[in-house]
C-alpha cells in the first residue's frame, strides 16, 4: 500500500458532521456540540466541552474544571501522550498550550494520522503544558487570528505593560479592573501580575476556577475572593480580575474610582480596542498569532490542512499558495468571535 493511497483514502479518519468532528473507525466525536454518546474533549471552555454527552474523555488536567462546570458527568482522564485503542482507532492527547489541560487530539487509523488541534497557542504562558507539535498527515487548525496583522509580543513585555498600568492606577488612588474569561485567561493574567504593587481580588467566577486549579496542583499567586466585604477601603491599590460582563456592573461599584482594562488578541486592532477596551486594552491571547499558526502547521509536516474558526477563507488561500492542500471546514463549524463569545467563556 502506498502512502499516496492512504492520504487519498475515501474513508477519512475524521469527518465533519452536524454533531461535530466524527471518527467512524472509533465511533466517537471530538468537541461535539450536539448530544452524542462518546466525546473526546480538547479543553474545558464551554464552546468545546458541552453538557449532555454520554461519556467524556479528556486530559487529567482538564477534567477538574470540566466537572466543576458540567457537574455530574461520566468522564475519564488520560495522560498526555498515552495511547488508547478505541474501536479501530488509536487515540492520544498532546499539549496544545491554550489553557491548563488543553490538548490536541491525535487519531490514527490504519497508519493514517489526523490531529484535531482544538484551540492552541505557541507561547509558553507558564501555566499550561507548552504546545508540542505532532507529526500527522491531516491537521485541523483554528485561524482565529489567522491574519498577518496579529503578532504577539513576548509575555514579559506585555506583563510589564500590565503592571505599569496597575501601578499608575494604584498611585492615583484608583482600583484597576481587568476583564478576563474565568478559565485560563484569568489565571494567566494573575500569574503575570507583580504582587508587590497591591492585592489581587477575584470575582467569584474567577476565584472558583482558581480554587479548582490550585486543588489539582497548579501554583497560582495569592488571590482574594472579592465578596461584599471587600472594597476599595479595605483593599486599596487593588487589581480586580472579573469576567467581562462584570465590568461596569453594579458589582464593580464597591471598588470606588477605577480604570478598566480588557485583555484579548483583538486588542491589536485599534478600532476594536476603542470599542471594547474600557480604559486600556492589552494584547494577550491564548490563541496562536500569524507566525504561531504557520510555525505549528509547518511542524506537523501535514500536507492536508482543515481550517476552522476565524479568517478561514483568507488563511486557507494563503496556505494553498504556499503549497499546502488546505480547505475551509464548512460554516457550521465556525467558532466564536470576541463579541459572540461574551457569555460563552471562550478565551480569545
Amino acid at each position, binding site marked *: 500500500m502506498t502512502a499516496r493511497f492512504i492520504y487519498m483514502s475515501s474513508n477519512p479518519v475524521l469527518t465533519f458532521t452536524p454533531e461535530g468532528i466524527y471518527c467512524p473507525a472509533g465511533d466517537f466525536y471530538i468537541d461535539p456540540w450536539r448530544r452524542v454518546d462518546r466525546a473526546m474533549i480538547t479543553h474545558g471552555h464551554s464552546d468545546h466541552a458541552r453538557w449532555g454527552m454520554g461519556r467524556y474523555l479528556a486530559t487529567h488536567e482538564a477534567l477538574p474544571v470540566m466537572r466543576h462546570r458540567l457537574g455530574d458527568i461520566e468522564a475519564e482522564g488520560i495522560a498526555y501522550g498515552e495511547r488508547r485503542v478505541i474501536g479501530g482507532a488509536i487515540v492520544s492527547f498532546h499539549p496544545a498550550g491554550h489553557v491548563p489541560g488543553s490538548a490536541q487530539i491525535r487519531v490514527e487509523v490504519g497508519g493514517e494520522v489526523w490531529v484535531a488541534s482544538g484551540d492552541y497557542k505557541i507561547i509558553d504562558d507558564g501555566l499550561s503544558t507548552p504546545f508540542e507539535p505532532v507529526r500527522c498527515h491531516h491537521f485541523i487548525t483554528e485561524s482565529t487570528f489567522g491574519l498577518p496583522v496579529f503578532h504577539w509580543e513576548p509575555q514579559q513585555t506585555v506583563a510589564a505593560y500590565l503592571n505599569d498600568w496597575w501601578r499608575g492606577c494604584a498611585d492615583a488612588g484608583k482600583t484597576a479592573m481587568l476583564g478576563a474569561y474565568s478559565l485560563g485567561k484569568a489565571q494567566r493574567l494573575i500569574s503575570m501580575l507583580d504582587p508587590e504593587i497591591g492585592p489581587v481580588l477575584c470575582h467569584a467566577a474567577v476565584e472558583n476556577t482558581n480554587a479548582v486549579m490550585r486543588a489539582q496542583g497548579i501554583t497560582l499567586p495569592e488571590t482574594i475572593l472579592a465578596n461584599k466585604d471587600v472594597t476599595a477601603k479595605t483593599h486599596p491599590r487593588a487589581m480586580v480580575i472579573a469576567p467581562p460582563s462584570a465590568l461596569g456592573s453594579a458589582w464593580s461599584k464597591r471598588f470606588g474610582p477605577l480604570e478598566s482594562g480588557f485583555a484579548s488578541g483583538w486588542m491589536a*486592532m*485599534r478600532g476594536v480596542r476603542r470599542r471594547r477596551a474600557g480604559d486600556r486594552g492589552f494584547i494577550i491571547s491564548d490563541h496562536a498569532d500569524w507566525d504561531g499558526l504557520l510555525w505549528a502547521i509547518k511542524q506537523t509536516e501535514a500536507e492536508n490542512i482543515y481550517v476552522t474558526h476565524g479568517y478561514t477563507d*483568507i488563511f486557507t488561500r494563503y496556505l494553498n499558495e504556499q503549497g499546502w492542500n488546505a480547505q475551509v471546514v464548512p*460554516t457550521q463549524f465556525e467558532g*466564536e*468571535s470576541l*463579541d*459572540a463569545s461574551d457569555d460563552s467563556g471562550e478565551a480569545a
Partner: protein
Amino acid sequence: MKAFAALFTAIDQSTKTTIKVNALAEYFKAADDIDKLWTIALFSGRRPKRAVTTTRLREWGAEVAGIPLWLFEDCYPIVGDLAETIALVLPPNQTTDNRPLSQWINDLRAVYKADETAKKVFVLDAWARLGGTERFIFNKLITGGMRVGVSQKLMTRALARATDRDEAELAHRLMGNWHPDDTTWHALIEAQDASADASRPYPFYLAYALEGGPEALEVPADWRAEWKWDGIRGQLILRGGEYFVWSRGEELMTDRFPELARAVDYLPDGTVLDGELLVWHPGTAHPASFNTLQPRIGRKTVPKKLLKEAPVVLHAYDLLEWQGEDVRHLPFRERRAQLETACAAMPEEAPVKLSPQLKFSTPADLHAYRDGARDAQAEGLMLKRADSPYLAGRKKGDWWKWKLAPLTIDAVMIYAQSGSGRRANLFTDFTFAVRDGEALVPFTKAYSGLTDKEFREITAWVRKNTLQRFGPVRQVTPHHVFEIAFEGIQASPRHKSGVALRFPRMLRWRQDKPLAEANTLDDLNEMLRLYG
C-alpha cells in the same frame, strides 16, 4: 515623534473628555511652537503634501512584511485603516529615533520631489526606526486623516487652557484656510488679529434636537421659527471684493457654487451670511429635493448644463458680519432685522434670498407648520431664541431643531457583511428586502441604529444561518425583520427595486414580527407615490 505619540496614545485610549483635554493642555504647554502648530493642523484634518502614493505604500508594506499583496489587501478592509494595517504587518522596529514630529514632517517634505528609489529608502528606513504608535503616526502623516477622538471644541478648550486665551476667539482663529506651511504658531494663535485671511469663516452655531414638542419652550413670544431646510448649510463670505462659500464641515466650496459670485452685486463688502444652499428653480414655490442638489456637491467644478438644471440659491437665515464688523454678539432679533434690511431690495434673480420666518402665537401653530413641512420640502422647523447671540459649536438652550418623524418600513434582512475598524469582527452592514409575492426584492442597505449588544447577537445569528458566501458578503436565511427609518424616497432606475432612500438606518429590530408581516413592494411604491 515620541511626545506626539504619547499624546496620541493618551487621547486615543481614553473616552473621558477631561483626560483628553488635560493631555492636550500639558502637551501644548511643553512642546515647541512648530510641533504645536503641526499638532493642531493634524488634529483638524490638515496634513503635509502627500509625498508617497498609497499604492506604493501598500506594495512596500507587503514587501517588507514578506506577504503577497493580495493578503495585505484582504487585511486592509478588516483593520479598516491603511496606515494601521501597514503598521501591524511590518516586522518590529530595529532601532529607535528621537526626531520630533515637525522634523519628521520636514524630512517627509524633503523627499516630495525625490525619485521613487529615494522615497522608498526613506520610508523603509522610517519603518525600521519607528515601532507601534510612532509607526502608525508616520504612516498617517502620509495617508492623512489623523482622526482621534478630538473634536475641534475639545482642542480649542485645551488650547485656551494652555495659552490663557478666550475659547471662542481661538475657535475663530482655527477656522478656515490656514496651513502650517504658510503660518506660524505666533501668527495663528497669538498675534493681534489684523492680517487674518479674507476667507476665514466663523465657527457654525449648531442646534440640538428638540425632544418632545415646542410646549417646553414656554413663552412663545421669546422665540422665532423657520423652516429647517433639507439642503447644505453654508456660510457665504463677502470680503475684499471676493466671495467664499464654506460648508459646515469647514470645506471651502466656492468653486462649486459659481452662481453665488453675483452676491457681491447685491450685498456690501464685509458681509457674512449663514444659510442653506438649495436647488430652487425660478418661479417655483418650494425648493427642489435634496437629490437634485447631490450632483452639485459631488464635483469640484460645475458644467453649464448642470448649472441650468440645478440652480443653487442661498437662503440666508442669519447675519454674522456686517460692514466688516463681527455682529455675532448681537441678539438674534437685531441680526435678523439687519439681515432683512440688507435683503429687502434684493431682486428676483439674486442668488441670495431671505429665508422666511414663520409667524406663530401658540405651540399649536408650530405643530401645524411642522405637519406641513414635507409639502414645503423642509425637514422640520428651527426654533431660535430671539435674544440669543450667535454661539460657536453645538450649544444647548437657544437653538433647537424640531425634525419630522422619519418614514419607516418593515423589511427583511437578506445579506450581511462584516464592518471594518471599530466593527471589524461584527456583521454590521446589511441589505434589506421587501416582499413581492414569494420573492424578496432588495431595496436598501443600512449600517447603523443597533446597539453593540444587538450587533453581537445578530453576528452570532449570521454565522449560524449563512446560506451562501459571495466573498465578504453572506446571504442569510430570510428571517429577521427590521424597521428601517429614512428621510426621503426617490424613484431610481439604478436600483433593482426602483427606489432610492435617503439616510436609511435600522430603527428597531422587530423580533416580534414574523417574515410574513414585513412590508411589500406595493407598500414601498405607495410610499414613493406619497412622498417621492
